[in-house]
């Protein structure tokens, strides 16, 4: 069900990508600055909710490409996967691991199990909220 408001539809098309980019930005910078997986997931979810209000639940599902429940499951799997390195090296569960990769120039790419976990939180929050919203909207349609 498409909204009849032209302003909403046009604005949504412009705002949704920005919001999504912002959510990833929040996710990545979360370790040092305000942000993180939880907030990032909420921002991403509100982006899709905005899209859903403008263009309806069906088109949102098409935009997501996968069912929100799969996003949720993927999030939980990411979170669990972040525990594997600690298990493999025989440390207590959930011990954080860090890897640094040198990049061209004087910078480093810092990756960690913490980041993988945060991505899991991001996806789980997004998946949960989208499950709520899409289910509720679909009943209405």
């Amino acid at each position, binding site marked *: 069900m498409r909204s009849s408001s032209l302003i909403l539809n046009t604005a949504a098309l412009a705002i949704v990508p920005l919001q999504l980019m912002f959510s990833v930005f929040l996710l990545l910078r*979360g*370790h*040092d*600055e*305000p*942000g*993180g*997986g*939880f*907030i990032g997931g*909420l*921002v991403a*979810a*509100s982006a899709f*909710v905005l899209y859903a209000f403008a263009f309806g639940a069906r088109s949102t599902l098409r935009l997501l490409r996968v069912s*929100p*429940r799969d996003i*949720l*499951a993927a*999030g*939980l799997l990411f*979170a*669990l996967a972040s525990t594997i390195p600690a298990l493999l090296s025989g440390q207590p*569960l*959930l011990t*954080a691991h*860090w890897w640094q990769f040198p990049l061209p120039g004087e910078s480093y790419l*810092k990756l*960690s199990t*913490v980041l993988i*976990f*945060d991505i*899991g*939180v991001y996806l*789980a*929050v997004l*998946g*949960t*909220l989208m*499950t*709520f*919203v899409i*289910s*509720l*909207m*679909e*009943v*209405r349609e």
Partner: protein
Amino acid sequence: MMLLAVLSGFLMAFAVPALRRFAGQHIGWLLALLPASLTVYFASLVPSISRGEILLIENQWMPGLGITLDFMVDGLSLVFALLISGIGTFILIYAGSYLKGHKDLGRFYVIMLSFMASMLGLVLSDNLIAFFVFWELTSITSYMLIGFNHEDEEARKCALQGLFVTAGGGLVLMAGLILLGFITGSYSFTEILASDLQIQEHAFYTAATICILIGAFTKSAQVPFHFWLPNAMAAPTPVSAYLHSATMVKAGVYLLARLNPSLGGDALWSGSLMLFGAATMLTGAYLAFSSTGIKKVLAYSTVMALGTLTMLIGVGTELAITAFICFLLAHSLYKGALFMLAGALDHETGTKDITKMGGLRQSMPLTAAITCLAALSLAGLPPLFGFVAKELMLESLLKAPAWSLGLLVVAVASAMLVVAVAGLVAIKPFFGEVLKTPKQPHEAPFAMLIGPAVLSLLALIFGVVPFVPAGILLDAAISSVHGAAVETALALWHGVNVPLILSVVSLLIGSLLLYKWQRLQPNLCALNTAGSRFGPEAGYFRFMLGITQVADWQTRLLQNGVLGIYLLILVLVTFGLTGYTLLTRHGFELSFDFSDGYFYEFGIALLLVVSTLFACATRSRLGSVASVGVTGFGVALIFIHFSAPDLGITQLLVETLTVILLVLVLFKLPPFVNLSSPLERYRDLAVAVFAGIVMTLLILAAMDIQFFESISSYYIENSSELAFGKNIVNVILVDFRQLDTLGEIFVLGLAAIGVFSMIKFRAEDQHRP
């Protein structure tokens, strides 16, 4: 190696589906290779054990909790391990033939192998906790085995009864084991047995002993818990043959024997063992005599045997322990054989009722011969091993330090009845006039006879040369139960002495009873039916009924489906308890100090109050949702004002999404109707105000109570050093307290699935015509 030996049953269970496709009809033979090789492995340990060594194989399991998978092999556990794997071999072969073509044969083997592995773990565990885990595993797997014919309601009921009794006893046992660990300061059997601590003098000794006894009595079907065992005969015969000969029901006896050196010697221990053991022995023998189903007869004679074993541990002299081990071995051999033979009879004739069988010796000569041999051992006649065991038992009772005469009378009475029972099993079906059975009887297949044949022959060999098994292993087993080295001189023939005379008397009276059985049985049966109304089983049913009634009553009271009541109870209980604690621990202390407040802080507070009041007062749903939203944004403002940007952002986003979700839900609700009376609304108002006051007081109190040193400084100092992050909130979420977050996102997932299924299924219901 030992770890593999114990756990191989579980591993093999996983392989059953694949193996079944590969081996087809002959899967029984294939799977029997596992217990057969286990038997060989355990037999290879015999020489060192018979020298009096105790093997201790250490495996870590949960070192943080002091729980290990250590295995301890001494005479007692090795006898059990050999019986479990040896009889298990024949049972698996037997079951392949007995359940031939059964659609769930694969499932049967999966559970059977798991059960065998649990049983091995039980008798070999050195750690009390691991022992308990295996103990409960046997309860669960035997539940599934007894209820194997799960389409039969009776089988399900009996299985559940067995589970309730044994698992209920298991819970009590757990308390007992923990108390024991507390008394001795160790959770290892070896250490407990080796310590020279005076356990009997400890304050917890009585409690620990009673708990352990209840656990063992429920498992080993002692009076008054004996009723589950005959009901467990709803299981297919291979299961009965295994569970009730050497395994499941012997687990309780094993525990008693295992702990005898430590807990024994006390009047409480020996008194209750002798009392309950003797009562069980007589009850079992009598009930066996008065039953007609061949499996029931055997089941009750198992109850009798378990009573005898318990009683012998209670007597506790060196002679009694010798009798205990011999009786244990003899019973496992003949009972395993007889159950398998009973299954063969049932399989070939189509009935379990011995009154309907007769003259089968012509059509089933081999079965008849083996049955007679095993029954001779049951009756305790020479030259079978059962005779050796029974003579030892009578002799040890004669020389018992206490209650000698009473126990002897009970034992002789039971012996008479058992002679009659053995006759019922061996003579009634096979001799006399030929009776017509539902199926045309013919000889049982080889796979069903090999087990009973080998077991009966062993009983014969052990009977003729009892000093051979004694020298090989039994002495070691007797020593480990007695707690001191023992050397026995077993012989078949001891000359004419008092036990022999008692045996002859019981044989004569037993034969007379058998002769009169046809006339006695209906009367006894009527008596039993009348008595069962007051028996322990009736108590069990009344207890179970009581549980459902209480559950029913409290569900109607607390979970009546009205959401408002749920909320009311939740809020009242939570804030009632919190308020009570606050009042008693802290008391009222109200101190307001607004002097350092800024005007915009008061502004936010005012906004919060007004929007909350509006949300309560308005009759428009949209209005109340919006004003709740305003409250939320106000809280976000407070967070930002007190420099918690992360919380502020989260609060804003959550608030936005909540309002959106609520609005979506609003469309589905029926029009607003006022269902509650004014009185109810005043009650709700009072509860709400009460909760608000308690919460406010709690927050005010929290400002100046500090039970522990605040942990914030630790986070602030270590956030960037240990976790390489400067945003402390996020570092706490994803690193310091990652486990909490992990749990929380799984709760999120559950909530999503719940909402999804609730909405989806309602929608589908509505679409249905």
